[in-house]
């Protein structure tokens, strides 16, 4: 999967996934595995930093849809940050901004987890 990469780091009890490249039906399983592994480790406060994300298709959005309910029911959330306009537009076309916390930068997401 050379056109997609993901890395996990930890900050103030929040797990941050840095995703970059192109998220489509081929690469979505990579994100899915990373989210599953955080949930398995009982890390429910999750920020997905999309600053390196160049492209997303609906298969990528589907991963966020599949896990948000579980994470929220366990007291956590998946917050999305640092999207470029093209990527945000795809989330917007499908109505994500009303149901997901989509923030300009990672710091805002970390603060909102503290409140």
């Amino acid at each position, binding site marked *: 999967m050379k056109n997609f990469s993901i890395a996990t780091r930890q900050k103030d009890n929040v797990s941050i996934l840095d995703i970059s490249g192109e998220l*489509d*039906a081929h690469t979505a399983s990579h994100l899915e595995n990373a989210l599953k592994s955080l949930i398995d480790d009982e890390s429910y406060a999750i920020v997905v930093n999309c600053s390196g994300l160049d*492209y997303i298709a609906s298969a990528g959005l589907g991963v966020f*849809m599949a896990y948000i*309910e579980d994470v929220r029911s366990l007291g956590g959330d998946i917050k999305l940050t640092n999207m470029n306009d*093209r990527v945000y537009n*795809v989330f917007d076309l*499908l*109505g994500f901004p009303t149901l997901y916390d989509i923030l300009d930068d990672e710091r805002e997401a970390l603060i909102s987890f503290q409140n």
Partner: protein
Amino acid sequence: MAGTNQIQTLSVAASTEHLAEVRDFVAAHAQNIGLSQKDISEIRLAVDEAYTNIIKHAYKDSPTSLVNIEIGSNSNQLWISLKDEGKSFDPSTYSEPNLMKKIKEKKRGGMGVYLIRKLMDQVQYNRKGHKNEIRMVKNL
């Protein structure tokens, strides 16, 4: 360029491995005819969704099956056609996705056709014999 047609074709196996190649194929054509970055992004996403639907629904993950893609343009329109010989798709089953409901029910599909219709100006489905074609048009 008025009155001339530029057509390019790509025959590719039905596997998500080739998604990036398919997106780049249509983006290169769109770039060559001078479309904006916004239009190029929309065309890349529309072809991705159409090709992914063929892989998942028409061929049900059968990577030896083929998809034939054609992209063409004239001064007024750019069109993309994808042909397969898999299970037919009934476009009347399409509806605007209810995101809240999908999340509650943990369903993640059914967004591709909606996106294609949002991104392109015309979308047609045809089935002739055992061949399916989706043809998407963007007005220029």
